[in-house]
Each structure stands twice: as structure tokens, then as C-alpha cells.
């Protein structure tokens, strides 16, 4: 196996599932287009080996941004032809907010990496707006446990976000 293929395989194993998930989301579940976009993104990464330099941190933000740009370009090209105007991607209609869109996806990507207990406690205490006491009741654990889980969940989240180059 040549060095290129090795590099590509490492890249693929580490990032293709996340890229695939994002591509499926952005294409509204079109597997063919998602696969083409992932392919194009990995090819572009191969052309820019500096992106994969360990000293630069996770290439995830670059990969997500590139994937998104690939799909935006493709979407624009298709949009010219009237017969495919219907498969508009609402989220892609504001390219000026590319960074924000990619960032929000990176947040989702980071959340997926947390343990089930950590995600659960963030769902209760943040997204559902429960108090510690309410969350304790819903989850069937003591309030002290809710507090400590929340604490370690935020620490894990902060780390996962930092790894992805997302800072508050």
C-alpha cells in the first residue's frame, strides 16, 4: 500500500462516518450525492496535506467546511436547471453563515462523542430546562449525582469542542 493510500485510509477511518452523517443531513438523505461529496472532500484533503498536519489540531472543521462548500457548489450548479430547483436545501441558502452552520454541526458532532449519561443530563438540565431537583426525579438519581454528572459532562463537552477548534 502506497503512502497515499495509507494516508487516505487513516483519514477515511477517522472522519468518513462523521462526514457521511453531515453529508446525509445536508443532502436530505440522498446517499448518492452524500457519497460523491465525501469523496470530493477527501480528495481535497489529500491535495492539501498541510490540513492534516498534527500541529494544526483536528482537521474536522476544515473537512466539514469543505464538505459543505462542495455541496453548496453542487447545489448552485444544479439550481440553474429548473427541473431540480425543488431539492432546495434551506440551510444552504445563506452561504454567509457558513461558519455558523459548520460550528453548529461541530457542536452536534461533539455531543455525539459524550457518554449516554452525560448527554442525558445535558438534555434534562439544559435543553429541557429542568432544575437539578426535577432532573434528579426524572432520572431517578440523587440531586448530587445530577450536579456531578453535569459538571463532568460540561468538561467532556468543552474538551470535545476544543478538539474540533470550536471556542466559545
Amino acid at each position: 500500500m502506497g503512502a497515499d493510500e495509507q494516508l487516505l485510509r487513516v483519514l477515511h477511518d477517522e472522519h468518513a462516518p462523521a462526514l457521511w452523517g453531515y453529508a446525509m443531513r445536508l443532502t436530505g438523505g440522498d446517499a448518492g450525492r452524500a457519497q460523491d461529496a465525501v469523496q470530493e472532500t477527501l480528495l481535497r484533503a489529500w491535495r492539501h496535506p498541510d490540513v492534516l498536519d498534527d500541529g494544526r489540531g483536528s482537521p474536522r472543521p476544515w473537512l466539514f467546511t469543505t464538505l459543505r462548500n462542495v455541496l453548496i457548489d453542487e447545489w448552485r450548479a444544479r439550481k440553474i436547471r429548473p427541473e431540480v430547483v425543488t431539492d432546495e436545501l434551506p440551510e444552504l441558502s445563506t452561504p454567509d453563515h457558513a461558519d455558523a452552520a459548520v460550528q453548529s454541526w461541530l457542536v452536534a458532532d461533539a455531543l455525539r462523542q459524550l457518554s449516554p449519561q452525560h448527554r442525558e443530563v445535558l438534555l434534562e438540565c439544559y435543553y429541557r430546562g429542568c432544575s437539578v431537583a426535577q432532573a434528579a426525579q426524572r432520572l431517578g438519581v440523587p440531586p448530587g449525582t445530577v450536579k456531578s454528572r453535569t459538571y463532568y459532562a460540561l468538561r467532556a463537552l468543552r474538551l470535545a469542542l476544543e478538539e474540533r477548534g470550536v471556542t466559545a
Partner: protein
Amino acid sequence: MTDGFAHDAAPYVLGALGPEDRRAFEEHLEGCAPCQAEVRGFAGLPGLLSRLPAGELPAALAGEAEPPGPVSVVPAVMARIRSERRSRTRRAVLVAAAAAVIAGAAGAAATEVLDRPAAAVAFTPASAEVPASAEARLTDVPGGTRIDMTCRYEGELDGRAREYVLLAVPKGGGEPARLGSWPVLTAADYGMVVVVPMPRGQIDRLQVTNATGRSLLTLRP
């Protein structure tokens, strides 16, 4: 971080402490530098959590593993890399120091191609262990020979600094001309265009050596 407040900073920034807990923690916070630091460290997270696209919440929070792609795209990407290689390589245009004198004398005409360029010829590796391959095309130009060389490193990229050197050895055992050197950092092709002040017929061979001078690849035009 003491007196039972060890973990309160987290539910506090998320707004999940009940009124009594919150009041007690805020009183404690005034005199506790470590807890203040924790609050500062967590302060940006609620804002980031709020950016999660609404539609993503269930999937992300369920920790749903991303469904695997139907097939690996590695073979497809490799095929595209190979075809891209054939049609286009990245080139760094270098004029070797040795050629500079000639180029100066001949001016802009130095790189004007006189003949149709010959086909690229592959270098012969010194042994089967050489982790690189190269090819070059030699073209007659006023005052010498233009060499378009592409070298590809195929060994492992283990982070060690490597440098390769391209030499032109004249016939009759004269001093080899050093045409250029490049760091081997990535698996990408390295391309070089140089004008060597020797007619094509006087070049005995081109050599790619490593930094210690060991010959890795040889091309006899």
C-alpha cells in the same frame, strides 16, 4: 470547590440550580476563586449548546452513531488521485544555481523549447528498497537542457525529515551539477523544472540522492 459546591458551577451556568441552591452558590462564589474559575471556564458552553440545530437534537443526544456510508470511498478517491497524477503534477519551478548564469546570458529565451519535448522517462531505482520513484523529460533549450522532473515518495511518512537532491552527472567524469533539493514531507508529488547548462548529449545521467549522497534513482537519457 469545597463545602459541597464542588460541582455546582456546571448546573449554575446551565441555569439548572433551584432558587435556594443558586443563592447559596452565589454567596459561596464571592469568596471562592476556584469556583469563579470553573464558572468562567464553562461560561461559553450554553451559548454553543444553543447553536445545535433544532432538528439535530434528538439524534445527537441519543448518541446515534452516524450510519456508516454504504461503501468505503477510498478506492474511488485513490482512482481519482492516480488519474490526477497522470494529467497534472504540482510543480515548483526552480532554476538551479548552475543554470542561473546561462539563463542570465540567454535571457527570456532560456526556457524556450526548441524541440518537441521528449516523452518522460522513468528513473531506475538503485534497489527494490528505494521508497521513491521519479520520471523526467529532457528538452533541448538554448544554452542547455531543460529537465522536467517529478518525484514521488512512496515510503512511510514517519515525521522524519528527509531531503532529496537532483544531480546531473556530465559525461567524462566531470563534477556533478546539483540541480536542486527538496524536503520530503508529504506523499504528494514533487515537481521541478530546471535548465542545466549542458547539452543533452553531454549528460551522462541524472541522479536522485538522499541528503547523505547515496544514489536512490538514476536516469540515463
